[in-house]
């Protein structure tokens, strides 16, 4: 006798869900949506009650946490799932996770949790293990079963991004990890509590295996509290609507969503094949040394996405040619990939009033086994595979922008690029207090790319989390007592140029004060110095790269003590050094996530990130838009002239005749220095035949050419001999 409806086992209902979809093409085999059609108003009321249960859980439970990322930035989400694991409703927050939870439930079904450790009223389960459905171990899931008269009728779940997971690098986004044992604290699905209370041993794990233990314990309590709140509210809803309605209604919600999304894609896009492409870089050479000899190298990562919009509105994504799994932090499993990819799907076509896993049923992926998004090595590191897998979300933004543009729905065009920052810190103050902190609030509100009809908007949004804002400097400093924020601003000219300009990237600048006995800092940036995207939009330039700067042995103490002005962004730091006003003994500059960097009193730390790409030919930018940029100081006169061919007077007024002549000269220069594609192809082919690639690029091609599809494209474009080999 199982715990599910009609005495079925939990494992049976999960298998039945998959079988029915495969056989009928409808979620749960539901050809008709009886409840939704019989009384749509009641059905909507039912659905919104479920959503409000999740929203209520989030907005109350998050007050328990002390983690500013949870409390202020909202890096958390609460969800309700049916016994099969499909998420039926969700709060605001980290909405990508709606895609992951079904995999976690499927995992515990396959592990036969019903038999051992058992699934009972009041039990608490948890995991952060990517092999079992979590995206990466910094995102922690806690869930409780909901029983009604002995029948498992739902799961309520809380998840949040914690402050530190005990990895090689401190804080939230550790980006050096050759294998899963350097990923930090990772736990497969397990029962961590009963009678709605966590066991004491569970708290000890957080204390011993992570750095920010106080924050992490509070986060855990928050997740439990929210999950229990949903549990209680669900039983009230069952009381009101009846358990039969509840059971059936959950399934209809998913199937209705699936149909709705297909209909929307067919109504707004154009079927066909669209390509998105991204390269990333990993630099471990010299960093992991003899201890991880085979990981002591650099990589160029190849992330191709061929996105098919199929005749029936479904989407197929082919990633053949993807870089092979390796001893780096970039591996990820399918659930994590789907989680981050969905963050491009929700905004582009899956935004509905009550989002749920209906989305999961309309997209399929080809992830070659052995590639970094389908690793076969069970010890593959996965701590930050999300960074690289997140590039797939931009495939949805950019490819669907092309599709909407072609159909005439320009207003739905919303191309995007990555580009963001965060950092972790750990230290020991003079009094011996051992602390860990960090921040990712700057990414809480980056700008946007240019659209097909307008410029990108600064400080607009956060792609992982629609509820976030710019964060509070005071809250950041609460978790990082050694770093004083001295700058947080938009950086002029720092964008991708185009007929419509991408949003300016942002910079933060901090000075280290009284670090005590020790301070180590590791910064994360979303891009890795090889282009924010490989494909500009309609002739616009991609955004400029992210960067991290550390200046050591400076005179910042003297500047601050003297009450003097100080530099507030990276560009100013450079100018001040050049002018001799800022003295820096040594410096470090990175265009990708950094190693652990030791910092001392007076050190300066600056990041510039999130410069977004443009749309269209910069030489077609309206002069009035250039004047606007000059007026606000977003673009300087020299850049207006050099990039946009717009000559301005001292008041910032564009001189039309002079500018038009300059633009003509710039077009003539294009003609002079460009060649016919055929001629260019001939020369490039020679280089490819001679294998004239830099080491990392050579290695990347050598790897990707193992995959038949990429090999066909590569050898076909350059018309290479069949035995071409690297």
């Amino acid at each position: 006798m199982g715990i599910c409806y009609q005495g079925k086992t939990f494992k049976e209902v999960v298998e039945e869900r998959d079988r029915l979809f495969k056989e009928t093409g409808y979620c749960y085999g539901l050809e008709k949506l009886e409840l939704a059609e019989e009384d749509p108003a009641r059905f909507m009321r039912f659905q919104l009650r479920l959503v409000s249960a999740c929203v209520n859980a989030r907005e109350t439970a998050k007050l328990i946490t002390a983690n500013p990322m949870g409390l202020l930035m909202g890096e958390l989400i609460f969800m309700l799932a049916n016994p099969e694991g499909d998420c039926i409703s969700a709060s605001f927050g980290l909405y990508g996770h709606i895609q992951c939870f079904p995999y976690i439930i499927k995992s515990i079904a396959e592990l036969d949790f019903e038999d051992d450790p058992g699934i009972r009223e009041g039990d608490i389960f948890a995991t952060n293990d990517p092999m079992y459905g979590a995206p990466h171990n910094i995102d922690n899931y806690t869930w409780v079963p909901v029983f009604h008269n002995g029948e498992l009728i739902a799961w309520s779940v809380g998840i949040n991004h914690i402050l530190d997971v005990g990895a090689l690098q401190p804080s939230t986004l550790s980006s050096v990890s050759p294998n899963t044992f350097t990923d930090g604290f990772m736990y497969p699905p397990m029962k961590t509590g009963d009678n709605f209370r966590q066991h004491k041993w569970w708290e000890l794990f957080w204390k011993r295996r992570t750095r920010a233990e106080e924050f992490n314990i509070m986060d855990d309590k928050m997740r439990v509290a929210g999950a229990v709140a949903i549990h209680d509210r669900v039983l009230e809803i069952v009381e009101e609507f009846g358990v039969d309605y509840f059971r059936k209604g959950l399934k209809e919600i998913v199937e209705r969503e699936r149909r709705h999304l297909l209909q929307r894609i067919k109504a707004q896009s154009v079927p066909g094949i669209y390509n998105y492409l991204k390269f990333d870089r990993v630099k471990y050479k010299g960093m992991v040394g003899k201890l991880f000899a085979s990981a002591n190298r650099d990589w160029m990562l190849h992330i191709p996405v061929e996105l098919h919009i199929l005749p029936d509105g479904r989407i197929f994504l082919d990633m053949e040619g993807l870089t092979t799994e390796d001893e780096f932090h970039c591996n990820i499993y399918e659930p994590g990939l789907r989680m981050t990819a969905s963050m491009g799907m929700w905004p582009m076509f899956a935004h509905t009033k009550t989002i749920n896993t209906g989305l999961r049923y309309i997209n399929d992926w080809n992830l070659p086994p052995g590639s970094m998004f389908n690793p076969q090595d069970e010890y593959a590191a996965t701590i930050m595979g999300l960074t690289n897998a997140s590039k797939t979300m931009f495939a949805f933004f950019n490819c669907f922008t092309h599709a909407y543009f072609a159909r005439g729905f320009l207003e739905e065009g919303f191309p995007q690029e990555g580009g963001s920052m965060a950092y972790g810190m750990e230290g020991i103050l003079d009094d011996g207090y051992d602390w860990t902190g960090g921040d990712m609030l700057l990414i809480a509100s980056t700008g946007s790319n240019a659209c097909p009809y307008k410029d990108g908007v600064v400080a607009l949004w956060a792609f992982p989390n629609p509820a976030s804002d710019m964060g509070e400097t005071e809250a950041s400093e609460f978790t990082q007592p050694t770093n004083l924020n001295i700058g947080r601003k938009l950086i002029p000219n720092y964008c991708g140029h185009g007929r419509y300009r991408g949003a300016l990237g942002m910079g933060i600048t901090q000075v280290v004060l009284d670090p005590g006995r020790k301070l180590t800092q590791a910064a994360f940036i979303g891009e890795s110095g090889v282009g924010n995207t490989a494909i500009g939009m309609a002739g616009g330039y991609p955004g400029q790269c992210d960067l991290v700067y550390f200046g050591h042995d400076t005179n910042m103490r003297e500047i601050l003590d003297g009450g003097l002005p100080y530099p507030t962004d990276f560009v100013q730091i450079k100018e001040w050094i050049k002018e001799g006003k800022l003295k820096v003994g040594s410096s470090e500059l990175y265009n990708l996530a950094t190693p652990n960097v030791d910092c001392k009193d007076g050190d300066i730390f600056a990041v510039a990130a999130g410069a977004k790409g443009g749309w269209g030919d910069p030489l077609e930018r309206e002069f009035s838009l250039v004047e606007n940029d000059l007026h606000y100081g977003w673009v300087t006169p020299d850049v207006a002239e050099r990039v946009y061919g717009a000559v301005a007077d001292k008041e910032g007024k564009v001189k039309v005749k002079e500018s038009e002549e300059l633009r003509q000269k710039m077009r003539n220069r294009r003609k002079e220095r460009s060649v016919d594609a055929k001629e260019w192809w001939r020369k490039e082919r020679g280089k490819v035949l001679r294998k004239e690639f830099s080491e990392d690029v050579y290695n990347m091609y050598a790897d990707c050419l193992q995959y038949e599809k990429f090999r066909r494209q590569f050898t076909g474009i350059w018309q290479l001999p069949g035995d071409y080999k690297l």
Partner: protein
Amino acid sequence: MPEEIVSKENVRLLVEGKLAWEEVKKLIRLSPKDEDRFWKYLEVLQQRVPWKDKILLRISDHLYIVAKKGGGRVVKCDCGQEFGDYRANWKLNCRVYVRKTREEMMEVFSIEEAVPDMDLVELREFYCPGCLAQLGVEIVPRGYPVVFEMLPDLDTFYQEWLGKPLEDEQPDWFQDKTLELTSEWAKEE
């Protein structure tokens, strides 16, 4: 209400980037979207170009797939320049300029330290041979195949999604022919 918001004039203004933001927001909020947008869009676009070929689909700021009177579907710039069969990547009929150095990059980027690592990638610009408009940009490693950004399934679109099949419908319109082009070039080598 939707008819007023999605007037042909508003579609024209949207295409030109001149529709007021408040009006754009109304378009964004339309759910479901207006069913005849595509046809209005085509009308607006057709009036903007100086040539008579029938536009089948707009694929970029300047580029359209058009039906040729004598048969065939080709990519055409609004200046009149043609790029051949739409099934082959139009970039291979452009003029190409490649930025390979940091100095060359600094003409279009602004912060030197934010330029991509030019030992690993290059920036390709694709210009229209007719009007020299910049039609495409790629940042890729040397030797990377030119990216075919979009191959629409035109017949499925017109027949199944719009319910108005094209006259020259045939199965092989949805096939990538790019490699046939480079194969021809190789024969000339």
